């Protein structure tokens, strides 16, 4: 098979793999939201069965914990399989060497990710779970980026002769916001895997204050007042600080992406695709902030907390691809007022 830079079937398959990965992250979110991460105590077997031969009756009807955890394992296996196909297909068919190697990295990452998931179960380590959850977000970004590089949009962007002279702080702000989102997702993963999402049970205040106390007497009192059928671990001062840092980082991200939206309009005209996409990203982040608040208000309802994970993943990918997508345009920028010259009104270049 001859190598090419444009294979619609491969591009479609990469999109499919990215969507599957997003689905996997959502199912993973359901596992932690339901506190079911340890509901299947063995790995790689499931209650002593080969994972793929686990009886349907036990999977579906024994309890929610087994349903979510075993489903996560099956979907993860499928994503591992799809990623393997994607890597091999890229290696055989893709002309761009760097993209072929991205496929190899994705393959290695999904193997490592599966191993981490298993070790989390067998070694009883929350820390591994936190790393597993954070790597999942980065893996999703990698697969989405591969899909983007295989897309017609990327080809148009790189083939185009025009350019956009963005505001000098626009792209650095995009990058900073994306990096902050990664940090935020890692903080969120730490909270989820320590079941510290409700370490501060009210919002926008924290225990009725701007910054809550964390002395031992306060913690003892706060822990006694926690009434929940899930009977979470007692909260610690560290978990309260973690929770508050998550809130502060959320504010920083919101401000930064708001600034991106403003800056995008300063360079491109208000109707340009880049400005619209940046505004959409800001909308996504607003939704994410609302979901974060609602997670607290709903006493960490599983579906809300999971939606918070899923939208977080989408926010990271959206912003990162926006940064990547604007790179060819910015690189060619030579003149100011570039939009009209480079991207015609209604151009589908980034759509």
């Amino acid at each position, binding site marked *: 098979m001859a190598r090419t830079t444009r294979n619609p079937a491969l591009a479609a398959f990469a999109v499919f793999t990215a969507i599957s990965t997003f689905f996997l992250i959502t199912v993973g979110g359901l596992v932690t939201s*339901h*506190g*079911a*991460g*340890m*509901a*299947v*105590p*063995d790995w790689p077997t499931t*209650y*002593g069965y080969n994972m793929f031969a686990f009886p349907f009756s*036990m999977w579906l*009807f*024994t*309890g*929610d*914990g*087994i349903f979510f*955890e075993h489903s996560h394992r099956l979907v993860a296996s499928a994503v591992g399989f799809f990623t393997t196909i994607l890597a091999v297909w890229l290696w055989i068919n893709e002309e761009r060497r760097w993209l072929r190697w991205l496929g190899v990295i994705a393959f290695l990452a999904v193997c490592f990710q599966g191993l981490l998931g298993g070790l989390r*179960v067998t070694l*009883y380590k929350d820390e591994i779970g936190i790393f597993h959850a954070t790597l999942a977000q980065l893996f999703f970004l990698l697969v989405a980026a591969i899909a983007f590089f295989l897309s017609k949009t990327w080809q148009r962007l790189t083939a185009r002769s025009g350019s956009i002279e963005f505001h000098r702080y626009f792209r650095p702000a995009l990058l900073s916001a994306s990096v902050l989102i990664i940090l935020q997702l890692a903080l969120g993963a730490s909270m989820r895997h320590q079941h510290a999402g409700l370490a501060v049970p009210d919002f926008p205040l924290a225990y009725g204050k701007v910054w809550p106390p964390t002395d031992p007497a306060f913690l*003892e*009192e706060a822990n*006694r*007042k926690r*009434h*929940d*059928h*899930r*009977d979470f*671990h007692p909260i610690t001062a560290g978990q309260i600080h973690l929770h508050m840092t998550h809130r502060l980082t959320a504010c920083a991200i919101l401000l930064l992406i708001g600034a991106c939206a403003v800056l995008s309009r300063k360079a491109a005209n208000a109707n340009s695709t880049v400005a619209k996409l940046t505004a959409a990203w800001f909308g996504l982040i607003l939704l994410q902030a609302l979901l974060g608040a609602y997670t607290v208000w709903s006493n960490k309802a599983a579906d809300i907390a999971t939606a918070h994970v899923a939208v977080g993943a989408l926010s990271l990918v959206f912003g990162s691809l926006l940064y990547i997508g604007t790179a060819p345009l910015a690189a060619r920028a030579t003149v100011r007022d570039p939009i009209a010259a480079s991207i015609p009104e209604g151009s589908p270049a980034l759509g």
Partner: protein
Amino acid sequence: MKNFTNNLRLILSGDNLLPILNFFTLEIMKLNRRFMAFAALVASLQLVSAGDVTGKITLKGTPPPEKDIPVDPACGKIHPTKKTRLYVVGSGGELADTFIYVKDGLTGKTFPVPEKGHLIDQVGCEYTPYVSGAMANQKILVRNSDPLLHNVHPIPTVAGNKEANIAQMPKSKDLEFTFAKEEPFLRFKCDVHPWMFSYVSIMNHPFYATSGKDGTFKITGLPAGKYTIEANHRKAGKQTVEVEVPESGSKEANFTLEAK
């Protein structure tokens, strides 16, 4: 005494030092044997003179209402209440599931570990008992009396006590766990059914009890002496009292905890 004078006469009739040394060695050994016997007698008297601490736990104030448990269909058929049991309180404020133990007064003493295991059962998708105690290194047996599987997941927080997570099929053999270090309210949970918990306090001595539904408790066999007794409820907090246990009979220690 007669033996002593006979031995002395015998020794003094000799003319070398060795028999004298032998004499003293022999007498010291005899004395030592008598001392050991005396110590054993004192120890047995101590046991005979051991007393009990009895009392009642009362809750002051109104506890928050119990939460609904979102049981799945399988457990929904067998779970007794479908409610949490954070406060089990009688009409007169009698508070169950309070762990009462000797907090201070036993320092330096060691106690044999019971050979009999401490049993926790899973019945109706609930752990029974909810709160209990066991000695360090005592076997803790976990039974599954339910018609469905559970995973038994003790999660200690004290270094030296090991976490485990083991599947347990319906009506299968009891699982065995031991924990070497003292730890209050060591948590056992089932991740398949995330509302299932049992809290076992691991102690270095056998002087503890859990209050029943009538709020009462009894710590038995406590040697006479002064002690600090603590009552600790997971939600209502803890309280200590000083007691002097008599050589026989029992001493009363009542506690009033406050609903949070």
